């Protein structure tokens, strides 16, 4: 069980916990605004863009080439951008903080 904190563009803060699945699925299950997940989590739509807290970014497994390329031209892209569907809850460090990009 990991605790994960989502912060939306409106500065709403959600403290969630989950055992499995992706950060996108967790966000959808909790109706977090700004995460649409239109492609269902297959790295095709980029509607699940998040920023990982800089202290946690390195602790996650690296992004695949496709994920990086999908992010490259997104609005609000940062050095710690990820697609939430590509980050597994299991890999998240305890207390992971993410900010929704849109």
């Amino acid at each position, binding site marked *: 069980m990991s605790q994960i904190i989502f912060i939306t563009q409106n500065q709403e803060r959600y403290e969630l916990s989950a055992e499995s699945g992706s950060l996108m699925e967790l966000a*959808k*299950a909790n*109706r977090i*605004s700004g995460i*649409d997940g*239109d*492609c*269902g989590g*297959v*790295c*095709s*739509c980029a509607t699940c863009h998040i920023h990982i807290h800089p202290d946690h970014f390195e602790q996650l497994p690296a992004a695949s*080439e*496709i994920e990086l*390329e*999908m992010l*490259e*031209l997104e609005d609000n892209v940062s050095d710690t951008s990820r697609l939430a569907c590509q980050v597994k809850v299991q890999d998240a460090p305890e207390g992971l903080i993410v900010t929704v990009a849109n």
Partner: protein
Amino acid sequence: MNQKCIIIGASHGGVNCAFALRKEGYQGSIDLIDADPNLPYHRPPLSKTFLNEDLPISQYSLWAEESYSSENINLHLGKRVLRILPESKTIVLDTGEILPYDQVVLATGAKAIMPSLPGIEEAKNLYTLRTAADVVAIKERLKSLQNPEIAIIGAGFIGLETAASLRKLGHPVSLYEREERILSRVAAQPTADYFSALHQAHGVQLFPGKTLSSVSETGNRVTMIFTDGSTKVADLAIFGIGVRPAVRLAQEAGLTTDSGILIDDHCQSSIADIYALGDCCSFIHPRYRRLVRIESVQNAVDQAKLIAKNIMGQSLSYEALPWFWSDQYDTKLQMVGINQGYDNLVVRRELDNDRKLSVWYFEGTRLLAVDAINNAKAYVLGTKYMKEDRLLDKELLANPEVPLSK
């Protein structure tokens, strides 16, 4: 007085429209109706992971059940809309209910085609692949057999994805296509060649240029007979030969239809307060100036969001650049744009990885569309170039020594 919005069809388009209406601040009632009894689900996995993994359809839900009640969306599942009566602004359900509306959104999608050929009506073990129930039936048939042998008719995206998913399970798959090559309706030769080679490398038996003429039952199996006289006996046959947009309701209500329900740039049909979106509708795409009917998640979702805003009083025109993806084995195809009317192509390979390919469709000098295979960079840059109407140097574009750049 409170408004009433009725959305017919609760799939990618209808569901997104309901949630978008709430996001935009719609205060009235929202009734979201679908004949399918399952909690609305993602359709793309049906031919992909839902087909070859053992998870229930509830794993692929668009939203959790509670989300509908939290957003005050009345979800009516397992109910069919029989009629729309624009004069009285009501709709009639197969349960006998009559619901009044202020706005209707038609998100009725499309139905898979089963050809009408001799023997089809009588034969068992023939399947289409459009709904969760279709796939559950296919999976049950597969489970009842030791070594199921599968024939797929039609080598478009559904046929190819189905072949890939079933090969992953190790089943023998033969794929028949009427045209001389696969993906003939949707992609150019280089893209088709790539996927032909990919499927052959994974052991799919490909038979282009074969037209089915009839079928017959042979014991518990089915025999397919082609116009050249050849035959194939299989345990089951899956048809991926295209869809028919669900326009009957619209036609009976007096709406103008073409290949689909005709909508204007605001996604409004020919009758006031009736909107349509997604697979069921046709419209003139402003960028391409041609009448199109687009079958993709992107188109259904983007039109849904635009309709929600227009119902809330905005006056937005739909001009989104279409995009689509298809996953087969470990290969990802991403398409952007509409390639109809292209007259020349640039094919680009990459030095770092021979699994990557991109096919660039032009009309003269104008970039119309890109097929990017295992190459998201080509996909995102192609999108950017099109949005900017960038004039590209085709020689540089084709040169793998020159990296693609912003």
